[in-house]
């Protein structure tokens, strides 16, 4: 017996085809690893398939899958820095001269990878996925207060590491998009 009737399966396949790229990009930003992100999205979609009969709408399914992706990514990263290891090259923007835009992007990415998993997830969901604080809290499975504190702490840490000369990041009170 299948988990879903045939029509539901067709709808689910359409959902996978249309949304898997966006979910992959989110997973990639959360994990920083192409292969792991692919695995995570595949497994999360398979779990969404289990819940498909009760999700009813694609919007619900996307939120549901995004939550699985996010909470699993946080869990993986918290369990161990298994994807975190010394890399060959870390851009050092502080004091670099001339400082190209590409170097700044790379430096930000490198420092984002160093953030604790919740801080990184909160920043990615708020500033990439453009979710509200409430939506971010729902996606991360935590309180709005935790989202606020995680975002604030993460941004503060990024500012410290990127350096004071860069007008790179919005201030805390600019980031809220209710």
């Amino acid at each position, binding site marked *: 017996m299948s988990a879903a009737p045939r029509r539901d399966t067709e709808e689910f396949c359409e959902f996978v085809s249309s949304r898997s790229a966006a979910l992959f990009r989110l997973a990639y930003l959360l994990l920083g690893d192409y292969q792991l992100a692919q695995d995570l999205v595949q497994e999360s979609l398979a779990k*969404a398939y289990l819940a498909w009969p009760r999700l009813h709408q694609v919007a619900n399914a996307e939120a549901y899958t995004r939550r699985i992706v996010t909470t699993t990514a946080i869990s993986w990263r918290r369990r161990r820095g298994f994807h*975190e290891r010394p890399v060959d090259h870390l851009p050092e923007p502080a004091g670099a001269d001339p400082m190209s835009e590409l170097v700044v992007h790379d430096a930000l990415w490198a420092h984002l990878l160093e953030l604790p998993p919740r801080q990184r997830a909160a920043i990615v969901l708020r500033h*990439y996925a453009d979710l509200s604080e409430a939506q971010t809290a729902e996606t991360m499975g935590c309180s709005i207060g935790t989202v606020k504190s995680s975002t604030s702490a993460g941004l503060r840490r990024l500012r410290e590491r990127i350096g004071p000369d860069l007008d*790179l990041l919005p201030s805390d009170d600019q980031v809220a998009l209710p």
Partner: protein
Amino acid sequence: MNIDLPTSLASRADSVEPPRIDPVAVVARGEQLVRRRRRFVVAGAALAVILTIGTTTLVLDRLADRDGPPPANPDRTSHGIVRPLTYGQGQVLHLGDREIDTGLDFLSLDVTDDGAALTTLDGGIWFTDGTEVDQVGATLGGRAVKDGVTWRVGRPRDWVVNDSSGSLLAWLEYPGGSAGGPELVVYDTARRVVAARQPLDPGSEARPVYEPVLAALAGRQVFVAGYSLPREQVAFLRYSLDSGNIQLVDTAAYNAAVRSVPRALVIGSTAHWGDVALHAEASPHLDRFDRLEVQDGRHDPLFDPHTGRRLDLRVPDAYAATPLWLGQWLDDDRFTMISGAAPRGDLLTCRISSARCEVTIQRSSWDDPPLLPGHGGVGAELALIQAAADSRD
């Protein structure tokens, strides 16, 4: 310069081309989960009772010994063996003073008292004592086909487990191909023989875990982790090399075993309230950390689980604000750490007795990015991605 954060994140996300995820494969995997869930309903109900009791015991045990003395461990001995500093560069394995041209593009390293094991992308497991390099086993490699669906089978550094002292290695082989059940292989690098083969039967009522992965080798016990239903909790199979028995155990038993090995450190609030680190290569399924955060010259609480003594390591000033990854044990007193941020990639050697760390190799000395025990190398993941891309072409 003014670059806003959303633009930068979007730029990074757009810089990678998303893989094509096959909806049919996802549905097949979903159906597999459905069948698995059904299969475990009966066994899972019984297991839930066991795990509830086990979890309660664990909590009570933890509360009881949170401030108490560490348990005695009369079997704790490492025989004083010194392991050489080990790392790989390209196809060359550095084993202390020896340089071995392996001729292999190896992806991970596992050290025993007798030499080093290497893995290659095809799943090959090789061992060398510094002279010849011999293939001693084979696991599945980068990808596997299960139920007609292709899935990865973990990262190279998780394909083999070792202990922080001793001669044993363990891995999973699949004699029936990827569709069959795994077989646990324990290999003795001192005698160069397979010490045991134990078929695992994930899914049977007696061993209700699925998606088994190697967790740890602690003394003469091998732990395999998997998920148990109905709540998809992590459970462990413990295989005893001495008795040949295999049984389902809880997290408390696993934690006790990996804390009791001769060489281990714990990152946590007390010696018994934290995560075991620097025991052996960990599995991503497990709550075990190998990263020390250092801020203002102070690092996360670190304990010797056998003495209960807290270690306040003094690191050189250059590393006063950088995460440090724990590397390998050299002897009962010395272990290595690798700096994770600027200065990145430097290798430090720390002594428990003096609580001091010194720089052993600076990154600028590496000819190529090094491959380190327990950490794989940047080349490992790239090789897997390339192989996956090649298989799609």
